[in-house]
């Protein structure tokens, strides 16, 4: 079925990574590092860009590029995906390795986590084998100090032979020094002389025999020692992984291939198998990292992570782990619903008064009545509704969710849920991409790149839409509040929160069931191996979280909603005002849809709203409201109570609300998500399946509920 790396991921990543960097653009810097070391924070601080950060490995899956100027010189900074190593063969590692090798960066900066320097040195040593111009940036120095971990940076620099800078990117500490060192290395004022890992004699002998041939054939862009080492690698000969690269065409170099093959068989027969040879290479690097780490790191407080362990023992415990997780999520929903009430009313009041003023002005400048109606009643009212209903919950929900992310809770969720994902033959990291889906399904789909296995990546991609994105949360919240919680005065927020919690848990279940279904049918296979890092908990930066989640996320989503809602408002206005015979066009279409819609507990207008809402889920309810107002626009709809009245007038019962919620959770992905799926999978087939699957699930579930509940009730 064409399920190759090329079609499902690497191709896309490579495409993303064809950075058009010309030397005239400035000095090119590559930013490498283990996942979750604050690499993105460094990138943001240097470039002033706002890449989203979070305390969990694999956050940066796309490669960002940014610029900064220092002493009148322009620098182009490329943020590579986080990797533990350059030796294994995941998509991220290939991309990072290829860029360091063949992207010709002037300087490569490796960001390391001060708290687990030893593990990070593994990558540092590997990068040093490829290139000379390497700078080590030991980040999170503040966290290290808090945990009483001392690092002798000078000694580290001496042992590695490259410049070392200590930073705490979140507070800006050390960044100026970093820029200065980068400048010096880029201008050749400092010439790093990386000290090589001393390998076992067998390996050193091999390198010695290979090096001259390599040097004859290549320029010195990539070190011959490194090429020699990896020619023998059984998993990914160097010749394979840059087959497209025009600069160095190892694959065409038969001389080299032959020589390496001869040597390889010689070593295999005389000493050891290729596998052992490779083990030796990695072991030597790890041992060297351990040796350096022992020389420079001193831990004054051996129990520094006891506190983390205590928290973990609660958050992942057999009895409390999952209940705490559910309770936490429920609490966030409750806080969102309870807290959004008042600001929502305030905003709606504000927009109503603004609308009157706008109307006055338009009448005063004598615009035609139809234009006035279209602008004020068609566009402005929809906008006002979208903003006042959506902004407050988002402004509360996003910072809270980001807080969990920043603390490092998401990997624990993945840890707690992994067993179930394994049962579904899916990848453990799918829990992480699912969490990203809560923010935005399109982002969740892109996030699926953290999954190496193409099969499991496709499963995660196709099922991502089963968790509600924030475009659907407002719909769920509004319906849960007015129909499910209804008149139970004092408990409205609690009941609404519980309803949404139930919806979320259901959506996770559906995700698992569908994943399993895919695994035993079209995407057969066993779960692949995976390792998940549980990073130390970090002190969240509350101020930054609030600013970033409100400005970057809430306003982004809102902007999208508004930009889609405005033209949609216009279309609805037209549909409602163009008449065929006696009835408006919108009623005409709704009547066509009605027989089918009724079967699944909806009505023609609702189904039409979902169809028209394809560009963005945010606008389904606004469209529905506009459609119901057969006069062509939202009346004085300033709060949820009136929305309920309107819906009830149109024949809604609580059962209708339940069906709408189910359908909202399970229907086709929005246009952006579909487009992203197409881009990621490079396949219309999988895009179509991603469209069809949730739609079928939604129709079946709605049918069962709509037809089954009345039977039981009677």
């Amino acid at each position, binding site marked *: 079925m064409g399920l190759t790396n090329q079609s499902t991921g690497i191709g896309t990543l490579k495409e993303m990574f064809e950075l058009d960097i010309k030397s005239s653009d400035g000095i090119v810097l590559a930013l490498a590092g283990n996942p979750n070391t604050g690499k993105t924070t460094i990138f943001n601080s240097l470039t002033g860009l706002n890449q989203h950060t979070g305390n969990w490995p694999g956050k940066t899956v796309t490669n960002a590029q940014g610029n900064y100027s220092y002493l009148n010189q322009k620098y182009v900074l490329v943020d590579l995906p986080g990797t*533990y*190593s350059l*030796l*294994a*063969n995941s998509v991220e590692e290939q991309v990072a390795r290829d860029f360091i090798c063949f992207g010709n960066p002037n300087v490569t900066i490796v960001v390391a986590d001060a*708290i*687990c320097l*030893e*593990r990070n040195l*593994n990558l540092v040593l590997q990068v040093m084998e490829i290139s000379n111009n390497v700078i080590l940036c030991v980040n999170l120095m503040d966290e290290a100090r808090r945990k009483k971990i001392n690092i002798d940076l000078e000694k580290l620099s001496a042992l590695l032979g490259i410049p070392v800078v200590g930073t705490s990117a979140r507070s800006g500490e050390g960044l100026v020094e970093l820029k200065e060192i980068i400048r010096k290395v880029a201008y050749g004022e400092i010439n790093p002389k990386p000290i090589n890992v001393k390998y076992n004699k067998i390996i050193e002998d091999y390198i010695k025999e290979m090096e001259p041939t390599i040097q004859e054939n290549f320029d010195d862009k990539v070190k011959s020692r490194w090429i020699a080492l990896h020619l023998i690698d059984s*998993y990914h000969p160097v010749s394979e992984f840059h087959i497209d690269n025009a600069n160095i065409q190892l694959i065409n170099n038969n001389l080299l291939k032959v020589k390496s093959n001869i040597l390889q068989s010689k070593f295999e027969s005389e000493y050891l198998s290729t*596998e052992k040879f*490779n*083990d030796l290479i*990695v*072991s030597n690097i*790890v*041992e060297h*990292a*351990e040796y350096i780490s022992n020389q420079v790191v001193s831990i004054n407080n051996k129990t520094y992570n006891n506190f*983390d*362990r205590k928290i*973990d*023992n609660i958050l*992942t*415990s*057999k*009895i409390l*782990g*999952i209940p705490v997780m559910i309770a936490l999520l429920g609490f966030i929903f409750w806080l969102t619903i309870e807290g959004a009430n008042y600001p929502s009313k305030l905003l709606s009041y504000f927009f109503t008064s603004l609308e009157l003023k706008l109307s006055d002005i338009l009448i005063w400048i004598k615009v035609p009545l139809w234009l006035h109606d279209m602008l004020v009643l068609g566009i402005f009212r929809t906008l006002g509704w979208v903003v006042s209903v959506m902004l407050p919950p988002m402004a509360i929900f996003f910072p809270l969710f980001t807080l969990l992310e920043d603390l490092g809770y998401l990997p624990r969720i993945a*840890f*707690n849920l*992994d*067993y*179930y994902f*394994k049962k579904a033959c899916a990848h*453990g990291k799918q829990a992480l991409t699912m969490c990203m889906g809560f923010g935005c399904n399109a982002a969740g789909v892109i996030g699926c790149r953290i999954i190496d296995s193409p099969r499991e990546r496709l499963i995660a991609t196709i099922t991502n839409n089963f968790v509600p994105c924030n475009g659907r949360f407002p719909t769920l919240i509004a319906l849960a509040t007015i129909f499910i919680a209804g008149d139970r005065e004092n408990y409205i927020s609690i009941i609404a929160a519980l309803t949404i919690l139930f919806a979320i848990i259901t959506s996770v279940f559906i995700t698992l069931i569908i994943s399993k279904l895919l695994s035993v049918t079209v995407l057969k296979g066993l*779960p692949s*191996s*995976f*390792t*998940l*890092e*549980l*990073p*130390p908990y970090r002190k969240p930066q509350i101020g930054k979280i609030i600013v970033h989640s409100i400005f970057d996320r809430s306003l982004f989503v809102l902007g999208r909603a508004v930009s889609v809602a405005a033209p949609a408002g216009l279309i609805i206005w037209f549909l409602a005002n163009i008449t065929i015979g006696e009835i408006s066009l919108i009623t005409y279409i709704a009547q066509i849809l009605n027989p089918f819609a009724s079967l699944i507990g909806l009505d023609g207008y609702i189904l039409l709203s979902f169809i028209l809402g394809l560009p963005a889920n945010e606008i389904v309810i606004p469209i529905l409201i506009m459609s119901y107002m057969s006069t062509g626009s939202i009346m004085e709809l300033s709060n949820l109570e009136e929305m309920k009245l309107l819906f009830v007038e149109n024949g809604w019962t609580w059962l209708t609300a339940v069906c709408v919620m189910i359908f909202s959770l399970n229907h086709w992905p929005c246009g952006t998500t579909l487009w992203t799926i197409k881009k990621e999978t490079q396949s219309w087939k999988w895009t179509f399946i991603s469209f069809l699957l949730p739609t079928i699930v939604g129709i079946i579930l709605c049918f069962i509920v709509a037809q089954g509940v009345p039977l039981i009730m009677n």
Partner: protein
Amino acid sequence: MNNNLIPLNQLPTGSSGRVKMLTAKGLIRRRLLDLGLINNTIITSLMRSPSGDPTAYEIRGTVIALRIEEASKILVESI
């Protein structure tokens, strides 16, 4: 083969072991080595997830969760 060796997943939580052998092949083997699981590395079993699998281990100052499939391919000597 040494009889004192047990697969890592059988190491009781809270106790430590010394890595003696990897039976994994190919990419998984490489991944495990990359995590620093070379000969004689000390590994501590920290906690199991609510369903008993995966288990979190401390490896060279980092906490890594491994599924039973991977952990069973790491043979350790209990210490």
